[in-house]
């Protein structure tokens, strides 16, 4: 991508604004995710409610950013690197909004847990904690890669998603064992499954953002490539 300035300063300003806005939205979603995980682990109803409330803000940002993207396509008819950035932003907005939805699911599970925790035995899994940290790290890394349009960093994020997927499988096996041993844990275990699944999906969305970064930076569509193919494509540039 070229970093030179457009003949139209206004166009430069709009593109800069677009990048700032998507990164701001990313920051909001990141905070939402951190709070959602904390609200589930403590559990903390007030924090969970904050997460659920903030989802409305994320949704509004999605609609607003989409509007800006459509406007820029109509008014600027972007090409090359500008086009890839604008399309990449539009795709990333969708990923961020979905991460917000998943964070909300985690927060809801936290609230449910708070209501029930005195009456049921709840499985507390270290893996859920570590996979949540891994997914949050992926999101942070994907947003950093976006800010710098760093394809190599994005490729590394894509590789990390495997670990999160494997952790989910392992969590699932453990929860099944719990449920078989003590049917009283079935209900909270299922809740833990939803949380683990939400975390796994967040990892997927962070990976998708990393793929969009590679598209913006290099024009390659790596959405259905293996991590090895991605690494090779990125190193070829």
């Amino acid at each position, binding site marked *: *991508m*070229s970093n*030179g*300035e*457009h*003949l*139209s300063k206004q*166009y430069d300003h709009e593109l800069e604004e677009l990048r700032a806005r998507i990164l701001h939205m990313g920051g909001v979603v990141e905070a939402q995710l951190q709070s959602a995980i904390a609200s589930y682990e403590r559990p903390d109803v007030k924090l969970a409610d904050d997460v659920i409330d903030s989802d409305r803000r994320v949704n509004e940002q999605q609609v607003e950013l989409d509007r800006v993207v459509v406007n820029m396509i109509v008014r600027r*008819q*972007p*090409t*090359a*690197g*500008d*086009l*890839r950035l604008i399309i990449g932003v539009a795709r990333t907005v969708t990923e961020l909004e979905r991460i917000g939805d998943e964070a909300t699911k985690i927060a809801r599970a936290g609230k449910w847990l708070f209501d029930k925790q005195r009456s049921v035995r709840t499985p507390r899994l270290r893996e859920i904690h570590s996979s949540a940290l891994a997914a949050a790290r992926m999101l942070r890394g994907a947003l950093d890669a976006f800010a710098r349009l760093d394809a190599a960093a994005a490729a590394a994020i894509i590789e990390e998603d495997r670990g999160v997927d494997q952790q989910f499988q392992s969590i699932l096996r453990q929860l099944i064992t719990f449920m078989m041993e003590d049917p009283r844990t079935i209900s909270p275990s299922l809740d833990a499954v939803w949380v683990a699944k939400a975390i796994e999906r967040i990892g997927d969305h962070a990976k998708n953002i990393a793929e969009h970064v590679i*598209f913006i930076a*290099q*024009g*390659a*569509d*790596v959405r*259905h*490539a293996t991590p090895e*193919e*991605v690494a090779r*494509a990125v190193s*070829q540039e």
Partner: protein
Amino acid sequence: MIVNSADAGNLDAQPHTEAIPIKAEVNKLSFYYGDFRSLKDISLSVHSNRVTALIGPSGCGKSTFLRCFNRIHDLYPGNRYEGSIRLHPDNVDILSREVDPIDVRMRIGMVFQKPSPFPTTIFENVAYGLRLRGLASRAAVADKVEQSLRAAALWDEVKDRLDELASNLSGGQQQRLCIARALAADPELLLFDEPTSALDPIATASIEELISSLKETVSILIVTHNMQQAARCSDYTAFLYLGELVEFGETDQIFIRPATRQTEDYITGRFG
């Protein structure tokens, strides 16, 4: 699977261009206006039945390049070509001194920026070239005129007023009349030099539509200032700057993932 926005630059991808026959092959073409070297060692292939767009800032040589194809430069003393433009399938170098420019122009038609109808009737504008070529039968001429006007998407608008002066037509109609006039000679290659810059958006759209339909029968080279026009109607795009060919490739590749910084800067509007 890795899908590049355009295949260029991706080692895995096969370019689609191999199977498409070449209509004209430009090899190390340089052109001089007196001492001034306006084109520098340009080599590219014009594919058959495809639209190739030439883009670049004013003065980059794109019109000069286009005009080499029908030897218009021969009309002025001191102009000089180097290199060759080989027209296929017979592989004749149309820049060669042995080749008569008139023969070249019979095979390669040109449509100019401003509609340039002859000061005569609509019918005669198209029939003129046919008579020059010795087509005498009135019925044959009338047939060919109708066929050319239909191909230029003008027939329905003018069939009842063929004896009217061409200058009575609108700008867009006049431009399509000029296209019909060029088509009457059954050209193999059609050159368009900014064909819509004097037209309104609706007339522009009809000319662009026409260009897309014409490529079924003829190969097309078009010079345009309007990059969106190049993106809309061409299959290949060549970017020229200061008389040099900076980049040539499939239009999708050029507009989504240009290989050079200069091309990127030009098409994204960063050019100073």
